[in-house]
């Protein structure tokens, strides 16, 4: 997979193999991989009894809708690019306008992986100490993080 900045301040992703498409599609799967979704996990942080009920009823649904919209946006971008014949050049474009959306989707995936696997800030990366499932999850998390860093560097700004 190649990832390169564009002169408009965005990024282009050029998947080059089935594995590349697999890891891109895994963003959605990882982000949705927890029994308790991110909106609820964040909502649970509001513990003051004067606020918690209203937060759950009014704010959490908005958070959930926003996070789902972000995932749907990148799902559409990936599947639109994937629908072209493989011999065509079919990059996935991340414009400055949808950089936050991509960042959000990648972050949802990383937060879910962290919640599930508890990697911590400095995870043990030695494959010998990891189950195959955990190792694959860690590699995906690192890939998502690298893509987020590109997005911050090239596309996000005040």
């Amino acid at each position: 997979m190649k990832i390169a900045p564009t002169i408009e301040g965005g990024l282009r992703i050029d998947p080059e193999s089935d594995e590349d498409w697999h890891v891109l599609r895994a963003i959605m799967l990882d982000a949705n991989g927890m029994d308790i979704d991110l909106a609820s996990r964040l909502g649970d942080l509001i513990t003051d009894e004067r606020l918690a009920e209203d937060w759950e009823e009014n704010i959490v649904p908005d958070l959930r809708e926003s996070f789902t919209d972000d995932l749907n946006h990148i799902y559409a971008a990936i599947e639109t690019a994937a629908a072209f014949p493989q011999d065509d050049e079919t990059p996935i474009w991340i414009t400055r306008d949808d950089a936050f959306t991509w960042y959000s989707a990648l972050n949802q995936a990383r937060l879910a992986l962290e919640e599930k696997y508890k990697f911590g800030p400095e995870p043990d990366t030695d494959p010998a100490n990891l189950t195959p499932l955990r190792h694959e999850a860690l590699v995906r998390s690192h890939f998502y993080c690298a893509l987020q860093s590109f997005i911050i560097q090239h596309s996000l700004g005040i």
Partner: protein
Amino acid sequence: MSDTSTLTETDTKVSNQTPWNVIVHDDPVNLMAYVTLILQKIFGYDENHATTLMLQVHKEGLSIVWSGELEKAEFYVQQLQMHQLKTTLEAAE
């Protein structure tokens, strides 16, 4: 109108006037540059102040990033959670 309802109304006003702290907590996922960027975007802080708060989150585990009236505090917490920062809202002591 009974005395009881008058007292309840007074209590509510006092509660809303209590300063509230918007607190961002450390987590192993959100990138430091992103946290700084979001603090600038939401609060309008300059880069130096946002970086100071971000480093406090990173080193001390949390930072009170804003204090004030409840309605605004709720709005800020919602915005920070919308950007997936681990954020709580607590009445200032």
